[in-house]
């Protein structure tokens, strides 16, 4: 039976994690190791909710994206959205994980005003996705294999607004019932940098897959962070769970501050209480959520309104066949096919839109030149403008055209920089800019010869000097360039100058 498949491909293998000096935190009593695991909640990209036909659109008037099912009216029943199932499978495959052909939806029972049913439909004992792995490349050149324990589907809760009124909280159920994937990592991370890199990588993978938009401002991706500390070689310490951290930067800050808090307690001879904490970005501290602590007993049991979710291997295989190229694969291909450096390839694939842009620019062109223009000039401009690649003022095909103009000798590299700036401002095609502004490189030797002759005739002193010191030839190049408005083809100019000045080869 498929149920027996809970055993895991990756989970069975215990990964030994190398201790890195730079990851250790120095305490008063010596170095400490930080152990981190994350539960990332990723909103599934779908038009409608997990168990109802209401829209998943962000925002909207209060309770406008709410069906009778989402409001838990008496007698309302859930019906699962096939796209959410498909997205979870896609995600599992993208995380190189086992897809469980038998999974079960359970009810997680607790009371909260933004949880209308009084339970969340989730997956407890039999999740749809089992063990997988994410490879995280660190800046320092090492990589971390982060084990994925499981991925399961569950409903999001609504939203309670506590700041609208002194005595009351306001409840909006627009988010209630939106599909989430909870992606649970193993405690394989050893520093805030690694954790940040892991979430970044996970986000990249989800965006490549199109299973989550990764928009952290809108809460499409948020993380519960489990942190514990231990002395080297010691058994695992007691962990605290920092709930609902909603930016990558905050994840890093929360881990650092929480690790230091725990170390301080332990070094003073205290002990850590296993508890849920909240990170407050304003104070930069974590604080205990005692209100949530009170005897949690979720009383999970299979939701009797739903049947077990059974998949066929054929269904999973068909989804696997149509999986897009993932960041690791793309990176390898960029290195292989475009001879890019590991670093350049890494930068480019970190964002699918960037990678797609680059591919459009690089296609049939010099890849190194394309990479330089994209990662150097273009990213510089985007950074300056605070824009994403999707809002780039320079179109990928235009940038490609610009590279063609350089390679074809139509403009010089120097002129190209000017043309690029004009492209940034006007969004026009480089060919048109070059034509309209007469920036075409002069390759007509007659015109160059004329300019050279004029410069030689006007500067007899310099002519004498260059014959003694051929290295001053550059001065003549500069003069001719000035005279031609920089449009003279440098190679042709050099040859003519040398010939006219009798400098030979």
């Amino acid at each position, binding site marked *: 039976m498929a149920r027996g498949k809970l055993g895991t491909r990756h989970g069975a293998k215990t990964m030994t994690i190398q201790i890195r000096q730079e990851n250790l935190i120095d305490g008063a009593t010596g170095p400490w190791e930080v152990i981190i695991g994350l539960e990332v909640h990723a909103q599934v990209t779908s038009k409608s909710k997990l168990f109802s036909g209401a829209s998943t659109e962000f925002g909207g008037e*209060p*309770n406008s994206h*709410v069906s*009778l099912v989402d409001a838990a009216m008496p007698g309302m029943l859930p019906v*699962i*959205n096939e796209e959410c199932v498909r997205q979870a499978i896609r995600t599992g495959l993208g995380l190189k994980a086992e897809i469980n052909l038998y999974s079960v939806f359970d009810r997680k029972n607790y009371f909260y005003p933004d949880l209308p049913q009084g339970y969340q439909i989730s997956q407890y004992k039999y999740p749809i996705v089992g063990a997988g792995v994410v490879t995280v490349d660190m800046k320092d050149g090492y990589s971390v294999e982060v084990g994925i324990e499981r991925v399961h589907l569950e409903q999001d809760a609504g939203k309670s607004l506590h700041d609208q009124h002194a005595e*009351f909280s306001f409840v909006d159920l627009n988010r209630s019932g939106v599909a989430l994937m909870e992606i649970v990592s193993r405690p394989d991370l050893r520093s805030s940098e690694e954790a940040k890199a892991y979430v970044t990588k996970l986000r990249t993978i989800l965006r490549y897959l199109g299973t989550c938009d990764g928009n952290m401002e809108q809460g499409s991706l948020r993380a519960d962070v489990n942190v514990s500390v231990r002395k080297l070689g010691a058994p695992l310490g007691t962990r605290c769970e920092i709930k609902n951290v909603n930016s990558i930067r905050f994840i890093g800050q929360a881990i650092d501050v929480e690790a230091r808090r725990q170390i301080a307690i332990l070094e003073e001879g205290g002990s850590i209480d296993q508890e849920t904490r909240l990170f407050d970005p304003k104070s930069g501290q974590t604080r205990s959520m005692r209100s949530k602590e009170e005897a949690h007993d979720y009383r999970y049991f299979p939701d009797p309104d739903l049947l*077990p979710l059974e998949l066929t291997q054929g269904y999973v295989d068909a989804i696997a066949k149509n999986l897009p190229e993932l960041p690791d694969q793309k990176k390898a291909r960029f290195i292989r096919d475009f001879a890019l450096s590991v670093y350049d390839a890494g930068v480019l694939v970190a964002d699918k839109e960037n990678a797609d842009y680059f591919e459009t620019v690089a296609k049939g062109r010099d890849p190194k030149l394309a990479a330089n223009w994209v990662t150097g000039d273009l990213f510089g401009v985007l950074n300056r403008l605070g824009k994403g690649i999707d809002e780039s003022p320079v179109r990928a095909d235009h940038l490609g055209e610009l590279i063609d103009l350089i390679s074809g000798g139509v403009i010089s590299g120097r002129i190209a920089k000017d043309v690029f700036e004009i492209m940034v401002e006007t969004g026009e095609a480089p060919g048109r800019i070059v034509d309209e502004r007469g920036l075409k490189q002069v390759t007509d030797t007659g015109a160059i010869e004329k300019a050279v002759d004029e410069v030689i005739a006007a500067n007899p002193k310099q002519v004498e000097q260059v014959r003694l010191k051929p290295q001053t030839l550059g001065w003549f190049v500069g003069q001719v360039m000035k005279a031609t408005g920089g449009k003279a083809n440098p190679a042709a100019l050099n040859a003519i100058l040398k010939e006219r000045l009798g400098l030979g080869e």
Partner: protein
Amino acid sequence: MKVDEATVRHVARLARIKVSGQEAQSLQRELSAILDWVEQLDAVDTNGVEPMTRVEAMALPQRSDAVTDGGIPDQIVKNAPLTEDHFFVVPKVVE
């Protein structure tokens, strides 16, 4: 008795039902009696038996991903005891 009064109170707390002292005592008796009575299930050998997960052998039906519902905030809050601007309103929740 199968359950003590503290257990009754704990379970009532989980279920968000206030019980008075007197109620707790009678519930303790009643719950204990019911639990004693269901204990006869211990006599059934269920080794190797799968728990029932569905009444009929049928697959979980799945619907296609389309927006077919929502846009009815008036109806959603129509029966609510307290609302404001289509929000449900509850006593302040402290996190």
